[in-house]
């Protein structure tokens, strides 16, 4: 069975640091930066990129659609 | 070709709306204008032209339906009478702010409050100065006959679309309820959806195709931009003054005394002119047909010719201020009016001219003029 591997790209400037994406990620991929963006918000990033399976849960729940998700199938 | 009929003003207006190819009417019953929607409903306009006629749940719903319809580039109108128009004022202000073309009809009755259902012109200030909030004006047409109730529908839409601005037809219970001969125009075709898109697709919400999206709004959180919006409106109003002012002069050429009156008062004042002339008083009548823009230059000029002016209104003194502003104190300006639904008789109007203007006009020094204005 093929396994999915994923990755997300967060738009640093539109991310508002609401953290809604964190709990919906069952793989604990996401965390918040300690620095802030131009609007003064900490923003999301992959603290644990290997774990991402590209399920899009984070992106779907992101009010600002700051997350773009990529996925490839890799052999299990 | 035109068809000759005997109709009430309200009916003539409704029939003219169908014939002018108006796309939609939204209204709520109120005396003395319910014949408008009644005539429309009886005429099955959906069948005749496809016009949408809907009885709304309230005047507020009706004016907002007009706003919705107007935002799609279609010709939409509503009608009501005084208390109902008060309820529409937020929506009217939105129409002006969002630059939407639409026609609103007020068949005025006596107020304030529930008042009477009899004719009145006590909504003049509301109509021309700004009943709604904010810096805006309505183009105001004041019909004085059943024929004009009919003709002004198309005129009003022409102006509304020329300026993308709401237009008010300010009638009253007398003009709305009386029957006269009316020459009805032939049926015009309603624009097809495609024609609407072609003509108004640059601004109307008709569905975003390749063009930029269209937005209808009156909001600008940024006051700098909001000010620009308001100045844009001001420009339109200036242009209206230049290009679309309307008035009628009756027996003015040799007039020594002038009545100023619109709508039903103009009809009565016109009779007073005849009565006056029979008595040897050279009276004339200036009838503003548009109340905004107002024929101020015309009045300013007439003031060089006449000895005194009487503003005749079915109210306690409203238009008289515009007359005073226009006349710039060159000659005495007085007001005569009845209110609360009472219609003055031609005899009364003439008497008022004699009592208030002719006698005063002879004494005519600054002090008496002052007292009459202050």
């Amino acid at each position, binding site marked *: 069975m093929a396994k999915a591997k994923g990755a997300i790209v967060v738009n640093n400037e539109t991310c508002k640091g609401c953290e809604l994406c964190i709990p919906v990620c069952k793989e604990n991929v996401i965390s918040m930066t300690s620095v802030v963006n131009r609007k003064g918000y900490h923003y999301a990033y992959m603290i644990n990129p290997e774990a991402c399976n590209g399920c899009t849960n984070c992106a779907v729940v992101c009010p600002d659609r700051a997350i773009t998700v990529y996925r490839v199938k890799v052999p299990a | 070709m035109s068809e*000759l009929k*005997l109709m009430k003003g309200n009916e003539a207006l409704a029939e003219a709306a169908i014939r002018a190819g108006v796309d939609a009417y939204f209204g709520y019953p109120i*005396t*003395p204008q319910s014949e408008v929607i009644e005539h429309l409903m009886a005429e099955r306009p959906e069948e005749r032209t496809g016009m949408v006629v809907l009885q709304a749940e309230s005047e507020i719903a009706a004016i907002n339906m007009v706003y919705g319809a107007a935002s799609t580039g279609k010709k939409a109108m509503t009608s009501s009478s005084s208390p109902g128009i008060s309820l529409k004022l937020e929506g009217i202000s939105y129409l002006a702010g969002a630059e939407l073309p639409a026609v609103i009809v007020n068949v005025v009755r006596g107020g304030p409050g529930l008042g009477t*259902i009899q004719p009145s012109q006590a909504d003049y200030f509301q109509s021309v100065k700004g009943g709604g909030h904010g810096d805006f004006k309505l183009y105001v047409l004041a019909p004085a006959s059943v024929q004009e109730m009919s003709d002004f529908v198309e005129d009003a839409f022409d102006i509304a679309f020329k300026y993308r601005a709401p237009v008010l037809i300010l009638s009253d*219970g*007398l003009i709305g*309820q*009386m*029957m*006269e*001969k009316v020459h009805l125009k032939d049926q015009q075709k309603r624009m097809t959806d495609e024609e609407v898109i072609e003509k108004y697709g640059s601004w109307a919400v008709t569905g975003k195709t390749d063009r930029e999206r269209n937005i209808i709004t009156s909001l600008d959180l940024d006051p700098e931009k909001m000010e620009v919006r308001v100045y844009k409106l001001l420009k339109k109003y200036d242009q209206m003054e230049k290009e679309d002012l309307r008035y009628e002069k009756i027996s003015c050429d040799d007039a020594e005394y002038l009545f100023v009156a619109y709508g*039903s008062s103009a*009809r*009565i004042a*016109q*009779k007073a*002119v*005849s009565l006056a002339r029979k008595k040897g008083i050279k009276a004339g009548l200036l009838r503003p047909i548009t109340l905004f823009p107002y024929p101020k230059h015309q009045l300013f000029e007439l003031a060089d010719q006449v000895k005194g002016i009487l503003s005749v209104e079915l109210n306690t003194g409203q238009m008289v201020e515009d007359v005073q502003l226009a006349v710039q104190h060159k000659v005495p300006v007085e007001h005569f009016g009845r209110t609360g639904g009472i*219609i003055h*008789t*031609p*005899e*009364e109007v003439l008497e008022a001219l004699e009592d208030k203007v002719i006698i005063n006009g002879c004494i005519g020094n600054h002090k008496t003029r002052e007292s009459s204005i202050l």
Partner: protein
Amino acid sequence: MTEEIIIAGFGGQGVLSMGKILAYSGIMQDKEVSWMPSYGPEMRGGTANVTVILSDERISSPYLKMYDTAIILNQQSMDKFEKSVKPDGVLLYDPNGISHHPTRKDIKIYQIEGMKLAAEMGNKKIFNMVVLGAFLKIKPVIKLENVTDGLKKSLSERYHHLIPLNKEAIIKGLGSVSVYNVEEQAFHI
């Protein structure tokens, strides 16, 4: 020629439509016309009146203080409008239900037993046409043929079968009007 008329009576008496037929007839005779009703909370009886003006010239005020002719069909209207007839003008009334008859001596007063005649003709609704006939007898301002045309125009098609009856009523009225003498009694013309 200008004829200024007020017609006044109860709500249900057909006052407004009588005025309308008169006005439409005027149009048929190429006259300028105006028809100005008193309007009110329409549904609830009370009195109704209408001012009709027929003229060869453009009509200025559709609203008047004094009339050439007053057609009066109940007591309230008598109380209100007797005084509004111009000197030498005409007051035409149906005596049925009138307790205080007119008293002015400077006007011409006529009676028409409209209600009675209409009842006799078997249709109370044509009462107003009888009165209209009486008026046209006194003031033949409109030709009868034009009145027929006016009737046609002002009634919707589904009532056109009633036109002959209406005409009959008008003719009945034409023949039934009587002069009322304030001091004495009524005489037939």
